[in-house]
């Protein structure tokens, strides 16, 4: 595959090979499989989502997170500092028939992201799920409690340093003859 910009569409090139870095409201953007991926900072997130909503990105489909503890990823655009957690927000524009992914870096020491509840009330349950399973707190969320696990559960299971546990298996010694 040649890397000249002429015969390579933006969809196919690796992010770092894009000729000019794309920007969306001052936020660096890359493309993955035809979907735009933006990398806002935590304090830019709510304003960006609000602006995008007014531009037609009407629905917030998904809020989830990834714990990059054991996988140093290389697909971040320049200027984005890799942190342990990443909150991933998926927006959809029905008019453009396109999805947009926002990836927010969240530091391990202070895992707090502003809540999108004011912009998209439908993120309420999803943010609670992320809080429950990753321990990332959402500032401004009306009811940030555990949603899937019992209230007295200790730890956040989808973190990479949370063991999956095991059940002891009973073995019988082969019968002696």
């Amino acid at each position: 595959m040649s890397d000249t910009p002429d015969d390579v569409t933006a969809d196919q090139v690796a992010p770092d090979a894009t000729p000019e870095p794309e920007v969306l409201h001052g936020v660096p953007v890359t493309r993955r499989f035809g979907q735009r991926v933006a990398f806002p900072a935590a304090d830019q997130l709510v304003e960006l989502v609000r602006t995008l909503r007014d531009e037609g990105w009407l629905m917030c489909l998904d809020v989830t997170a990834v714990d990059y503890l054991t996988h140093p990823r290389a697909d971040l655009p320049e200027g984005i500092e890799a942190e342990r957690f990443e909150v991933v927000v998926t927006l959809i524009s029905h008019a453009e028939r396109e999805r947009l992914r926002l990836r927010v870096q969240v530091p391990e020491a202070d895992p707090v992201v502003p809540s999108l509840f004011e912009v998209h009330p439908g993120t309420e349950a999803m943010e609670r799920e992320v809080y429950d399973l990753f321990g990332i707190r959402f500032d401004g969320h009306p009811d940030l409690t555990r949603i899937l696990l019992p209230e007295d559960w200790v730890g956040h299971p989808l973190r990479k340093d949370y063991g999956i546990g095991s059940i002891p298996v009973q073995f019988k010694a082969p019968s002696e003859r």
Partner: protein
Amino acid sequence: MTIAENPTNHHHDLERLTSEGAQEMAPRPLAGGVEVLRELGCVLRMSESEAEALEAPDDAETSIINMGPQHPSTHGVLRLMLELDGEIVLRTKPVIGYLHTGMEKTGEDLTYVQGGTNVTRMDYASPIFNESAFCLAVEQLLGLELPPRAQWIRMLLNELNRLTSHFLFLATNGMDLGSTSMMIYGWREREEGLRLLEMITGLRMNHNFIRVGGTAADLPDGWQERLAAYLESIPGRLEEYEALMTDQPIWRERLQGVGAIDTDEAVALGATGPILRSTGYAWDLRRATPYFAYDQVDFDVIVGSYGDCFDRYAIRLNEIRESVKILWQCIEHLPAGDYRLQDRKVTPPPRRRIDESMEALIHHFKIYTEGFKVPEGEAYAAVESPRGELGCYLVSDGSGTPYRLHMRGPSFVNLQVLPHMLRGGTVADAVAIISSVDPIMGEVDR
């Protein structure tokens, strides 16, 4: 002598007297005569006039009750905390998690070959869709382009599964609203669909038939006749349903205008699928962002106009007709060719090749022991499941297992509309509304 005064009474917990006397009966020898008579029902706890005086003078006094998790109308293990003013529902809080089994965490430990068996159990009423979303995401990362026959077989199975899922909805919706005949009819049609799925995939549920790179096997001989017989039976049955329910005044009374939601609310709350379409918003991923071969078949997107329970019922009923339409086109136009990609690194070799080729044996062994490696990156793929947008967000670190597997379950997000729909309705309406949202708790809790 009251229990508390009884010098022989050492049951201190019995001393917690309420305005209506002790909550628990003392052992027979300890209880006084009045207590025993109360137990026997000879003495009223309180006279009518006294009880009237107790009525809350404040109309705003409300009570909180738990509906579920074992209530049959909650479709499994959904618990709703309802704040009631008399019989009117004010506030609602869905409480979920009773079926949480950590499937996303489990998915991080299974290879991409095994992943299908895991995700297929999430939305157990429409397992094919889970597999489809998962495989689409993996294929995006691998950069695979599927042969047309594989796409069509997938589309066929998706629509067949949509039929069984919607029949399940019609059955449970009927049951929740007291139409037991509809329940039996719905199960009957669903069972026939499941038999077809069993003939094709080998299992009634949790098929793991859609695999990365295509499907697990080709369609069996004679599938056209079996499917055609099934499809021919459906329109007549749907007419029966229309007569039994749609045209029936009681049914309309129970559903029309109940649980109405408008487009703005649905969009703000992230609701997708029939809930969003019931508000008149024509958004269907099969039409909007065609995957598989949906751009080559003719079908309509069904929308409602009032966003009430009746619209959601009617949409699903008519989506069955559209699915039947698509399935007829599958029978007619299903292209010949390969049912899976012939890529030895991703799909296993045909069984007969294993006997004659060392290479094939090695590939087979590799795929079924350690799986295949997927290039580093992240992808999001979505399909239109019977309940809405079912998305799969996948992060790969270049190894043989997903680094992060997240399923965006439509039921999970759709549950958030419940407090809005239930507000101001009665408890009986709540049953109809929960039913019309059609949540599958396996997918909500994952």
